């Protein structure tokens, strides 16, 4: 499988991950929920994986629903 640079958003709460998915979909932003990569944090959880050029759009969407527990990473996945 081809590796590529991805933007990964980790959440402190699973409820935030699904709220984020909801608002990203409403805003037509591509990406999907993935298991939280161990390279970000060991111990389960969900993260949003998206194209690496979408940071502004994604963070704006998160701000619109007051999600402040998101952490943004760039990973080769």
């Amino acid at each position, binding site marked *: 499988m081809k590796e590529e640079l991805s933007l990964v958003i980790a959440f402190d709460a699973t*409820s935030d991950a699904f709220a984020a998915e909801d608002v990203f979909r409403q805003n037509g932003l591509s990406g999907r929920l993935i*298991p939280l990569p161990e390279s970000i944090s060991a111990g*389960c959880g969900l993260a949003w994986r998206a194209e690496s050029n979408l940071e502004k759009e994604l963070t704006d969407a998160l701000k619109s629903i007051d999600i402040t527990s998101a952490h943004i990473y760039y990973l080769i996945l």
Partner: protein
Amino acid sequence: MIYLDNSATTMLKPVGVAEAVANAINESGSYARGAYTSAIWAGRTLHEARKEIAKLFNLGDNQTVAFCANATTALNTAILGAIEPGSHVITSVLEHNAVLRPLYRMQQTAGISIDFLPADDIGNIHVEHAKRLLRRDTKALILTHASNVTGNSVDIAAFGKFARENELLFIVDAAQSAGSIPIDFDSMNADILCFTGHKYLMGPQGTGGLCMKKSTRIDPLIYGGTGVDSFNHDQPINYPDRLEAGTQNIHSIAGLLFALKFINETGLENIIARKMALFTQLYMGLQTIDNITIYGDIYQKERTSTLSINIGDMDSAMVSDILSTEYDICTRSGAHCAPKMHEALGTERQGAVRLSISYFNTERNIEETINALSAIAF
């Protein structure tokens, strides 16, 4: 069968609730346990249910819903997890044992002291009494939104204002009012609102939850897996996740989600109007029968569709049994897990026959019930 024990649980659900549960059994994985299709399905279902609750109860920014098994679990979580040990708590004689017993437990184990707001002759409580009970060490006010015995509502706005002015934690038991009385969590000055899904929200049993501000500190009742932060010895710090340990009941929440959409699409005001029309029919029919005592504040502007009665000095259990065996009418007799309410009404020995009406009862149901009670009373 005529089912009039909807204050215990609604039996007739909106068409589609059972199918939604069955579909979830086939489709749902475990919430927060993976990013594969069926686990995502579970997460989206839970998220949609949170949104429908938020819409129905008007949750504002930074307010959320934590799901649990029922109102009793929600109230135990709120009372045992948020009330300060050693403090003074004000509650009322209207309360259900789901409130009273956790409080009595804290009285024994955490040194809290409790005072009860008295009820007047028709079962109402008044904020003036709360002012008299206030002490320097009073930290919390816990009230039902509506009595499960009389159906009377409580002036939550007035008590919420009182709680806010005196910096009290305000916990509201909405087990009877959710789906029966409009709830505006954002403006009622409550810190925690506990509800159940299987009564007047018309969802499956095994559903309920707490509406809360994300800033309200509640120690969990249940500790365990949440699907995140597994190496942390404590529960995750964020709400609602902190209160949702263990596998969530997505099967039943899928049914509740369907029921919530039904309510939001039908319009709560239309559901209330339907139930109160049937309630009025029942009251008008019963109030003309000699020997029947009706309890509660019937003419309240906002109340639930619950009516409790007695026939003369007949044992309420016997009346309920006759209704069941001879007329196939289902009612609840006895003390309804609200011992102080019955003491206040003077019915602790006789109990009362509770008739509680749902959106899916019919005029014919009510007519037959009036006729049956008339025959028993004669």
